[in-house]
């Protein structure tokens, strides 16, 4: 009988039990299901849009926006919707970059303070982290905005610091460096110093490689650059730049760098909240470096600075980089809470555009694409950085 041969047994497996067939079949059914669902939703959407008298296209982007945006790059209400959206994107990027920089510094300081041998410092840092981590960010932003910044004194009774920084209920005013005509001369000195520094850096790097000794490759380059910059400052005939101080004119300050109350509240909220998370990331990163590593570094004669730079930080950074990336992405995404206090970030502007045009679907698409592009760029950069520090360590 032919049934006795093993080959015919395997041939006789019915197709509904053949893994190869099932794999394909299962995926086809899955995709058909997904497409069917999408199709139903799409038909519903077309019906809904017809009911609202809308068509699905992007032509509206070239229409006049007609609404004002309180801050950001140059923009008039007579500009197009596309331009308005771009203003929002730039505002989001601006608050995110400044926020990331400040939160990193704050997180680093607090994270190190949490490991301090000083009992008081350690516990103040711990209380800060626990408080700000466990309260919703939106609540914090609203608190900073309505309970702190809007309750500050009026313009005439502004808090003044160093004669040039003014804080009042209309926002924060900072002095702004204004380049003069002599700026180019000083920039020339800076460029010269940079080239000199680069040469010294390479020379020392090569020498250290030859000697096979640990050392700080920028040990000569950094002082040389600073020296040239310093001497150049005095050799320049006039001052390269002057500080433009905000001055009270009429009912408000003019000149200098101006941070609106919305921007300030959003920034403070984001920085205090994310800083607490970054502090935890930094603390766990430093604690992850085994104690023996420090002791071994001491045993081979590295000093404290070398131990930190060559032994502890490279290993800690490897642990820190991935969670730090997700904190940066969180901060960027959380900047969308601007909508609650009226800072014109990309989500807020997009929301206004939706209310005006009713084109919610394409605008949602644009908003999501913008966030995805920002997120992917940030994580691509951080992944590159992560790979780089991992290579140094091994």
């Amino acid at each position: 009988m032919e049934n006795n041969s093993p080959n015919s047994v395997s041939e006789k497996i019915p197709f509904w039990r053949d893994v190869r067939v099932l794999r394909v079949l299962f995926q086809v059914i899955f995709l058909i299901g997904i497409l069917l669902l999408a199709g139903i939703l799409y038909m519903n959407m077309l019906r809904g849009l017809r009911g609202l008298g809308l068509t699905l296209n992007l032509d509206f982007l070239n229409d006049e926006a007609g609404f004002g945006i309180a801050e950001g790059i140059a923009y008039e209400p007579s500009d197009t919707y596309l331009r308005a959206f771009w203003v929002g994107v730039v505002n989001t990027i601006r608050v995110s970059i400044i926020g990331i920089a400040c939160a990193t510094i704050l997180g680093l300081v607090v994270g190190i303070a949490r490991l301090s041998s000083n009992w008081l410092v350690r516990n103040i840092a711990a209380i800060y982290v626990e408080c700000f981590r466990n309260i919703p960010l939106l609540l914090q932003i609203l608190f900073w905005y309505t309970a702190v910044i809007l309750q500050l004194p009026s313009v005439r009774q502004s808090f003044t610091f160093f004669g040039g920084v003014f804080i009042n209920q209309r926002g924060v005013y900072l002095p702004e460096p204004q380049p003069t005509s002599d700026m180019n001369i000083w920039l020339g000195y800076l460029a010269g110093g940079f080239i000199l520094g680069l040469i010294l850096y390479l020379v020392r790097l090569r020498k250290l490689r030859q000697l096979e000794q640990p050392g700080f490759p920028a040990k000569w380059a950094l002082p040389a650059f600073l020296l040239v910059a310093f001497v150049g400052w005095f050799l320049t005939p006039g001052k390269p730049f002057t500080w433009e101080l905000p001055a009270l004119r009429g009912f408000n300050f003019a000149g200098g760098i101006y941070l609106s109350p919305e921007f300030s509240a959003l920034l403070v909220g984001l920085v205090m909240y994310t800083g607490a998370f970054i502090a935890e990331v930094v603390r766990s990163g430093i604690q992850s470096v085994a104690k023996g590593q420090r002791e071994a570094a001491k045993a081979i004669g590295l000093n404290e600075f070398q131990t930190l730079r060559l032994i502890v930080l490279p290993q800690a950074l490897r642990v820190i980089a991935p969670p730090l990336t997700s904190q940066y992405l969180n901060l960027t995404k959380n900047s969308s809470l601007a909508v609650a206090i009226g800072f014109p970030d990309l989500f807020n502007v997009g929301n206004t555009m939706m209310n005006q045009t009713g084109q919610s679907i394409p605008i949602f698409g644009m908003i999501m694409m913008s966030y995805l592009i920002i997120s992917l760029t940030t994580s691509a950069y951080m992944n590159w950085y992560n790979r780089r520090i991992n290579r140094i360590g091994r």
Partner: protein
Amino acid sequence: MEERAPNPVIKPPTESKGILRWLKENLFNTWYNALFTLLAIVFLYVAFKGILTWAFTEANWGVIPANLQIFLVGAYPREEIWRVWIVIYTLGLLLGLSSGIWGGLALRLALVIGAVGGGVGIILAFFPTAFFNRFGLLGGVALLAVSLFLGRGRQRLRPWVLGGWLLSFPWTMIWLHGFAGLPTVLTSNWGGLLLTLILAAVGIVVSFPLGVLLALGRRSNLPAIKWVSTAYIETVRGVPLVTILFMAQIMVPIFLPDFRIDKILRAMLGITLFSAAYMAENVRGGLQAIPKGQHEAAHALGLNYPLTMLLIILPQALRSVIPAIVGQFISLFKDTSLVTVIGLLDLLGIAKTVIANPDWLGLQAEVYLFAAVIYFVFSYFMSYISQKIEDALGVG
């Protein structure tokens, strides 16, 4: 041979525990630490002086008791509030029985909740507010204690209590919404802390199965399923929750015009879809930690894919990600405050309406601080639990 001198008895170094010694070791061990200590003392003095002066002389705390009811339950009708109590008592009963039966972590949980509830209950018994029955909360604590003693040693109640926990979620919803002859309380009247807790609970409970499916999908070796799951997870994780909440508000009526889905359900939908993507990543972490040998062993036993996952892989994977899921629950609990932006009256939304009330103008700081304390207590308590779970499971 030289006779060895008898070992001199060395006394252990005297460990002085004087306060001065402690100060020297912990605050003034180096010159820069001494400087930091002085700076910290100045900072604390300025901060405490400012905060205490404000809290005891300028702040008007009357706004809190006057609005306590809407802070806790929003516009939930007053004559129906007993239903909230039924839900609280049910959960107290279940918790008490579980802690009696299982002991350990559940017992610790019950003790902390009992202590906090008892403390707040005593305060409320002395300062009755219009909303609270004076002894309502103390009654709940008593119920907790009684059920704890009832549960002790009764191991055969186990399946019943587990079933009770499974049913507690629909039970809560049915009581709050109303059934049979009970008047219906529309979800639009749910608010305050009640709504915050419900949104967080729905978000985590419903997103759990979705997240497990997505995680399995992402780890699948069928490309179509893998790519669809990955695309969903990465897209949702790449955009802010506010966007998804707005989208749920605006798009659901466009895409599903035949259904009337109310605002809170749409918010729940948005939160669940958002949370599922993060849940999937947590579960995936657990799945990746399972050694390949477990799959192979299951295969060798002749188990097919669903059985392998259900009986072998998921029980191990989920156990190891419990702390991560609790962590996600904490951030979800905080994130529910974003529904304020789409106009729902959760705890934060209620705080905003109280501030806008002309009777209580200019009390932003008091109201927001009160809301912040509530959020803090819950989040901090949950991270304490998560810590204890990590210790108990030996994972994380």
